[in-house]
């Protein structure tokens, strides 16, 4: 093995070990060689074909067509092939019995996942660099806008990064071979869809490059990048959680990220309200989308095992107040419910404040989708809170946890379909067409402009929500108590073990050693 020299030698120590290994393996691997060669041969043939077809006359569309041909090859490589190799790279840790070796080498899950992502992106960069001469040639042929080229390449890179993290996350979900085949099929479908989409998008981009200068287009791109970044961050967190030990903290990352994402989204909406004239209904629709977006991670959080893991309890803050403030972001189903209620409450508060700040009479506050937001929030509390509260005592067992997670959408399906079936037998077509209380969309649509519609349903929902919160009060209280006790225990241990000489406690000393 050749040793690096000079600056490289200094940098050599700071590379992520997994990145170094992945790049070494990939560059020596057959798969990369074959794909790289095929792509290069493909792009050379496209170039040669274009040059021959052009002859001596160069029209304005030649450069555009040439770039599109190149981009198609590039998209297949960086959006299709690179995430696929990332999926395989993660899966090979189990296939080759090396995952345990990684864990005991003290590499944290975050570094493992990051190394895999960076390894795949290094391959993507190799593809980009190999394509550069051809891209320059296409630009020299004219007929394409430089900004459009930069945007197209940028979008392909963002897609490649996002899909690579998604692929790694999917790869961590199961070690069973059959499940991995299913996950690979799902990934392949996504990769084909996104690759095709990016080619169509680029084609449109090259055809109408002027549209890119619109402020709305810039904002849309920003939303796209932030959206992919958030989705990738969630995938990263989930992948790290899946690689962590069951007794370690597998939840705080997701919780913090969820809160941060909600804050970013609310901030984005506020900035939109300040810059543009936002319609009340559009605002409500965005808030509904936000609430719906928070449901999936919340479904995972409210069905976690109730107790703090054995490796989490010793890490709870010793300061009681800090521990209390951190409670909703610590693992546990009850604490997950607490966080969900905090998020929902925050979103509702934003909804009311935002509508209040818009011009118009105060009576319009409870129209234009605000009742629908309220209805969705109440439904979310019931559908998430009811099954998770009932199954909370059993979620220590992995199978029970899966059942609890499945039962949340299951309850929605039951509430949707059972009245519809009953309606079919008794001949009530309102029920058959899902116009009943079990269907959130029905009430949201009916109450969009008036909270006074269907008072009976509102009363029923209010009763169910109260019952759900009452059922969850015990687990939430227990969750808070457990954190408080763990904090007190840590503080007590710290007091007992404080050495008079250094004033440093044993856990502090241990932390210091671990840090070093």
């Amino acid at each position, binding site marked *: *093995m050749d*040793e690096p020299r000079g600056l490289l*030698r200094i940098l050599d*120590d700071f*590379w992520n*070990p*997994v990145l*170094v*290994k992945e790049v*070494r*393996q990939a560059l*020596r*691997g057959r798969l990369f060689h074959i794909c790289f060669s095929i792509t290069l041969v493909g792009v050379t043939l496209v170039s040669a074909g274009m040059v021959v077809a052009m002859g001596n006359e160069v029209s304005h569309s030649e450069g555009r067509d040439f770039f599109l041909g190149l981009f198609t090859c590039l998209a297949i490589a960086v959006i299709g092939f690179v995430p696929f190799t990332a999926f395989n790279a993660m899966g*090979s840790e189990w296939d*080759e*019995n*090396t*995952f*345990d*070796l*990684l*864990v*005991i*080498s*003290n*590499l944290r899950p975050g570094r493992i996942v990051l190394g895999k992502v960076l390894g795949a992106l290094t391959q993507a960069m190799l593809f980009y660099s190999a394509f550069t001469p051809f891209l320059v040639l296409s630009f020299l042929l004219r007929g394409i806008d430089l900004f459009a080229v930069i945007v197209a390449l940028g979008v392909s890179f963002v897609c490649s990064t996002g899909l690579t993290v998604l692929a790694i996350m999917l790869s961590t979900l199961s070690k069973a071979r059959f499940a991995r085949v299913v996950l690979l099929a799902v990934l392949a479908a996504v990769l084909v869809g996104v690759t095709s989409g990016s080619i169509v998008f680029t084609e449109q981009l090259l055809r109408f490059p002027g549209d890119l200068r619109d402020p709305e287009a810039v904002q849309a791109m920003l939303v796209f990048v932030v959206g992919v970044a958030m989705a990738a961050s969630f995938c990263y967190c989930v992948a790290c959680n899946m690689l962590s*030990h*069951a*007794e370690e903290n597998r939840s705080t990352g997701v919780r913090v990220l969820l809160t941060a994402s909600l804050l970013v989204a609310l901030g984005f909406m506020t900035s939109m309200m300040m810059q543009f004239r936002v319609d009340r209904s559009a605002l409500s629709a965005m808030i509904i989308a936000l609430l719906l977006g928070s449901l999936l991670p919340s479904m995972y959080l409210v069905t976690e095992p109730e107790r703090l893991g*054995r*490796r989490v309890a*010793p890490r709870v803050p010793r300061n009681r107040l800090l521990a209390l403030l951190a409670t909703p972001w610590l693992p546990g189903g009850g604490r997950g419910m607490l966080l969900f209620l905090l998020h929902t409450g925050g979103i509702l508060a934003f909804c009311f404040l935002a509508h209040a700040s818009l011009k118009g009479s105060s009576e319009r506050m409870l129209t234009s989708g605000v009742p629908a937001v309220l209805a969705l929030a109440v439904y979310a509390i019931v559908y998430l809170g009811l099954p998770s509260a009932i199954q909370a005592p059993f979620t220590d067992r992995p199978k029970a946890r899966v059942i609890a997670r499945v039962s949340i959408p299951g309850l929605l399906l039951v509430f949707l379909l059972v009245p519809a079936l009953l309606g079919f037998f008794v001949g009530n077509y309102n029920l058959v067409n899902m116009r009943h209380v079990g269907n959130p969309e029905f009430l949201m649509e009916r109450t969009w402009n008036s909270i006074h519609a269907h008072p009976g349903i509102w009363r029923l929902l209010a009763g169910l929500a109260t019952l759900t919160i009452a059922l969850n009060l015990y687990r939430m209280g227990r969750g808070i108590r457990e954190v408080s006790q763990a904090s007190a225990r840590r503080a007590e241990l710290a007091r007992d073990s404080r050495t008079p000489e250094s004033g440093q406690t044993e856990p502090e000393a*241990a932390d210091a*050693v*671990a840090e070093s």
Partner: protein
Amino acid sequence: MSPALEVRSITKRFGDLTAVDNVTFGLEAGEIYGFIGPNGAGKTTTMRICATLQLPDEGDVFVEGHSVLEEPRLVRQRLGFMPDSFGAYAATTVSEYLDFFARAYGLRGQDRRRAIRDVMGFTSLEPLSGKLTSALSKGMKQRLCLAKTMLHDPSTLILDEPASGLDPRARIELRELVKALADMGKAILISSHILSELSEICDGVAVIEAGRIRATGSVEEITKGLQPHSEIFLRTLEPIEIAERRLVELPRVGAVRHDRDGLVFHFEGSDEDQAELLAQLVATGVRPIEFALKEADLEDLFLRLTEGKVQ
């Protein structure tokens, strides 16, 4: 000072199955401790708990005083674990493999290069440094795995079936490496099916079956605990039946059984009593050509202590 490795009343259940049931033992620096038991006895689970890869449902394990439950990172810095199945990366050479793990253990610059050089020297892997790991023989793979385990210079080593699948020469070489590691002051917990090997190198053993420890201590201590009497092998010029008839009439002689072309009998008494017995035997007209104290080996102990229970 805390023991190198202390397993304190650990229990691990998988559903209704109790894989490890209240297991306790410990070992000191420089000690080689054999961990023996039939397949499915709970050896690997116990070792994985010690290596922080699994958590006990009850009890705890301490490595130099650090708990696997509460301080797994500190434990991993002090412990090297060699699993029973070798994990090799495709398209990776021996030196790249070691370089990766050295980086993963946080070794930098000269320290990393020195550590790789040292472990390659110790395991005699230098000539193979550029060879792909997939092209190595089983014995060389085990050496590489041992080299990887030693990279961060752990004080305690846990070796799960390191000799499994090795040819006799590779086994002997591995045994010598283990001895050398113990001489360097490392505490070694080693499991193996090849009991004759363990009996030669182990300072102590723990016999486990169906998740429970059947016996712990040195081979001699366990032997004494199991059989208060000695076993003596006798071969004579006379037919075996005649010798047996004369022997059973002598004092302190217990149960007699046939073994190959001789007799094995229980005897309770000191060395003088044994000399006296031999003299009395000769006086009865029996002409012994072999009279030897039969020492119990690890295989005998294993068979006596375990019942062949499978979980």
